[in-house]
Structure formats: C-alpha cells, structure tokens
C-alpha cells in the first residue's frame, strides 16, 4: 500500500471511530437526562408522600394538607375522557380500516388524525373553552373531560386503525362467507382479534391525559374543595402541581412533588402494562 492511501485509510478509520464513539455518547446523554429526571421526581416525591395526601383537601397558602380532591377530580375527568373518546375513536378507526381503506376521504381523515395527535394540547383547551365554557358561562368538569377526550381520540383512532389492518383478511372472508353480516363480523370477529391492541391504545391514551395540564387550565380550572359535581370547576393533579410548584410556599412545593410522584408512577405503570399486553399478544400469535 502506498504512503498516501495508508494515510487516507487511517484518517477514515479515525473519523469512523470518533463518530461511532459520539453516537454512543449521544445515547448516554439521553439516558442521563432520563435517569436524572426520574431520580429527582421519585426521590423528592417519595419523601413528600404521606397518608394525609389521600384524605385531606388541597390547603390554603402556607398550611398543610393533601390532594384528595385533585386525585378524585383527575380520576373522574380521565374516566370521562376515556368514556367519551374511546367509542368515537374505535368507530372512527373501524371506518378507516374497514370502509375507507384506499379512499381519499380515508386518507384525509388519517392525515387530520395524525395532526391532531401531535397538535399542541393547549390549543385543544382553547377550542373547548370557546365551545363549552364560553357558552355555559362557567368552568366545569365536563369541559375538562371533553378537552381530555380530544386528546384520547386520535390515539385510539390510530391504534384501532392499525390493529384492524393487522387482522388477516382470511378471517373476514371466512366469516362473511358463512353469511355473517358485516357489522357482526366487525364486532365479534375483528374486535376480538384486535382487542389487545385497542386496549393498549386506550392505556397509552390514559397515560397521556393523566399528566396533561394545559387544556385543563381553562376548562376545568381548579377547585380547592371536594366536588363530585361535573358541572362545577374541578381540581386535577396536574393543575394543582402547576399552581403549587409556582408558588413561594415550601409546604405547597412538597405537595406538588408528591403529586408529581403519583402521576409519574401511574404513567410508568401504564406504560409497562401496555407493553406487557402487547408482548403477551405477540407471543401467543406465534
């Protein structure tokens, strides 16, 4: 080998080695933030955990209390959002996968759904504000649930669409050739086969809305007291975290960390659970 090509070769090897090393450093960089953020949240949050969290109301400035009303509000509004968003989302996903697969309208809906999936959640909050809060004249738990439902919707549409498309077409043909009407084929054959995927989608959507703050700020607002009335303003954990973390009071900070701990653990559990469902389903199909 000549001297020049020897040098060129060495230069290429050095560039290669350096860049591959840098790629490893990038991965370490990503993991580093993950560990740091999780560590801070879990450590500080765990220190702030106490039983009173679950039975006392959010306190006035400076004093101590719990976040029971916020936990309850979050639970109710998230359930409401799932109850509103899931049927519409599953139906729309069915339309995309079964009826509008190769049609322009299907493509348009899919496109819009993907935009909705990544659209800023605060914008959806403003939408519900003008639609509901402005019309009824007051903030309400309904409005909060509706704004969260708009976040659930695209997630469920997307997973239903994808999961139904994965169902082998032989199953459809076999059922249809027995004379089963299409709605029954969809309800009793396709949904049953796609169920684990759809459930995963719903769990992912639940994980997304359980930490969602921005749209609740001007739909459900906040409430210092316990309320089960969806027609009145409602507290939620993320909004309480936001309000308390921005405040100057030490006791409020610690409540905010406890709330953050609860939300993070819940979201992590959901993501592990949805992964487990998908994995089990994959194994059983093989």
């Amino acid at each position, binding site marked *: 080998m000549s001297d020049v090509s020897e040098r060129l070769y060495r230069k290429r090897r050095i560039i290669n080695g350096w860049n591959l090393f840098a790629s490893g450093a990038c991965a370490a960089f*990503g993991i580093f933030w993950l560990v740091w953020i999780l560590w801070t949240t879990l450590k500080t949050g765990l220190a702030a955990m106490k039983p009173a969290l679950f039975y006392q109301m959010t306190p006035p400035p400076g004093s101590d209390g719990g976040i029971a009303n916020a936990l309850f509000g979050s639970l109710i509004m998230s359930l409401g959002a799932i109850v509103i968003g899931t049927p519409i989302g599953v139906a729309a996903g069915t339309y995309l996968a079964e009826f509008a697969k190769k049609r322009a309208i299907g493509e348009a809906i899919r496109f819009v759904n993907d935009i909705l999936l990544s659209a800023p959640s605060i914008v959806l909050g403003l939408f519900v504000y*003008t639609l509901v809060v402005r019309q009824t004249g007051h903030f309400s738990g309904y409005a909060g649930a509706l704004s969260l439902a708009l976040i659930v919707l695209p997630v469920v549409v997307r997973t239903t669409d994808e999961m139904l498309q994965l169902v082998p077409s032989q199953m459809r043909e076999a059922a249809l050739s027995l004379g089963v009407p299409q709605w029954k084929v969809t309800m009793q054959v396709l949904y049953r086969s796609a169920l684990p995927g759809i459930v995963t989608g719903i769990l992912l959507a639940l994980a997304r809305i359980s930490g969602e703050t921005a749209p609740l700020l001007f739909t459900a*607002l906040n409430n210092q007291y316990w309320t089960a009335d969806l027609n009145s303003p409602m507290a939620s954990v993320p909004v309480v975290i936001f309000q308390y973390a921005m405040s100057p009071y030490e006791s409020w900070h610690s409540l905010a960390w406890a709330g953050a701990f609860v939300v993070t653990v819940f979201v992590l559990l959901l993501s592990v659970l949805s992964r487990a469902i998908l994995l089990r389903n994959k194994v059983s199909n093989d």
Partner: protein
Amino acid sequence: MAADTAAIAIPSSVVDANRRNASDARADSLFRWIVAAAGMFVLLALTGAALSMLWGGREAFSTFGFGFLFSTDWDAVNHKFGALVPIYGTLVTALIAMLIAVPVSFGIALFLTEVAPNWMRQPVGAAIELLAGIPSIIYGMWGLFVFVPIMGEYVNPWLNDHIGTWPVIGALFRGPPLGIGMLTAGIVLAIMVIPFISSVMREVFLTVPTRLKESAYALGSTTWEVVWDIVLPYTRSAVIGGVFLGLGRALGETMAVTFVLGNAHRLSASLLEPGNSIAATIANEFTEADSDIYRSSLIALGFLLFIVTFIVLSFAKLMLKRLSRQEGVK
C-alpha cells in the same frame, strides 16, 4: 297454474331468512353510517378547533389588524396587545431545542441501529422512549427546581465570562445569572423532543435494505461512511419529516416551557434573559384576562400557534410519506 302456485306454501324458514336478510342489511348500513360519522367527527374536531379560535380571536385581529403580528406591546391596562414577543420566544426556544436535539437524536438512532451490540438495543431504545412518556409538567417541575439553579449558578456565569466577551454572538450569552430564560427553556425542550425524533430516525434507518448497506461494506466503507453516504441519503425525506415532527412538538409545548421561561414580555437579544412563548403566555395569563380584548388576543395567539404547528406537522407528514411511497414502488 295459478292454483298450483298458491298450493305450494312458502316454507317459513325462507320467509324468516328473507326478513333476516333485510334486517341484516339495515343493521349493516346503520353500522356503516355510525362509523362514517365518527370518522367525520375527527375531521370536524380539527376544523372546529381552527374556526373556533379564529372566531374567538376575531376581536383582536380586527382591532389590531396585521400590526398584531409585529407589535411588541403587551399592555393589559391600556388594552394594547401584540404578538411579536411570544412569537419570537416560541421560535427561539424551538430553534435552540432543534439545534441540540437533531444531532443527538441522529447519534442515538445511529447507535441503536448500527453500533450497539444486539442485547443493548432493546433496553436502551425502551429507555429513550420512556422519556417521551413522562408528562411535560414533570419536565417543567424538574426544570424549575433542579435545572434552573444549576444554570443560574454555574452555566450562565461561565457563559457570561467566556462566550459573552466574544464579538457579535457574545450578545446572545450576556445576561443576569437568573437561570430561567430562553436557553434553559430550549435545553428542556430539547430533552423532551429527543425521544420523538430519535424513534422516527431509528425506525426509518431500519427500513434501509440490507443489500444496499452490504454492498457499501463490500467496497470497503467504514460504518460511518455507510451511515452518512448510504443510510442517510436513502432515508432523507423521512429524517426531515421526523425533525419537523419534533419541531411541531417543540413549538406547541406548554407546561415545561412555562415553568422555566420567566413570563417576561420583553424582547431581548440575550438568551439568558427571561422571555415568553405563545403557549406559555396563554397558560399563564388566560384565567387572569380581565377584558374581552385581552382574552381575544390570547385566543388569537392560540390561533397563530395552531396555524404554525399545522403547517409544520403537515410538512412532516408529507416528508414521512415520501419514504413509504418510495418503498412501495420497489
């Protein structure tokens, strides 16, 4: 003849089957209508969101006209509002985020598809995706309580002393060591969008046909040369799509930014100064808005944000689609 036909009684099972067919057909078309209506609802939700915000912001648009976009006013007492400061803050923080996130995401995708040993790819990939699942309010809190003090105590003074003295770009890094500000917000945003961009990049890198890469290796390329000259050109449009997907996220992110940006309505050259972004302004001030024009201005800001993210995300979708179409052709 007629008597014969009348004599043959139609078996009841046939009548039942006919009735059954009719009711099945009705149920089928009803089902079809229901799911189609749900599909239309998705279309309606997005257009409804756009129109309602245009409607809600009409007062601001008609009062301030085009000047709304270029005015730095934000005066709740005298009812003068302009969008320039929030727009500037949104763009600058998103730009900082992309400057950090794009190369890092590329590195992560490269590591996960070409460099890491097989046993490592799954857990590291899952960990990075876990970052995407953490709610943005947690990022915000962590940013405010942990990251801001570090920025204020160590990073900002260092930037001030070292880069702040440089000509031209020095002005970007001169400022009080508050910790909050555009730079901090940009870094937190970067951490948030890295998992989105890197997972898109990883997915599309895996679609590159093995024989293309093997051909390049056979000619004596190094791994880096294969990635840079074969993988990246092959997936170029989808990579750009992934970057724009991340940009869409960064532009619209609310909570994380609200915590660390400082909510200051001031246009300043320095990245270390507090600023404001569209989403943070809305989140901070909406419930405090005490006049119709104030609220209308905030909704108008929301409308602008919606339009910008819509364009960015549409572009991202189109770019991502180009790769799958190209694959379909083969």
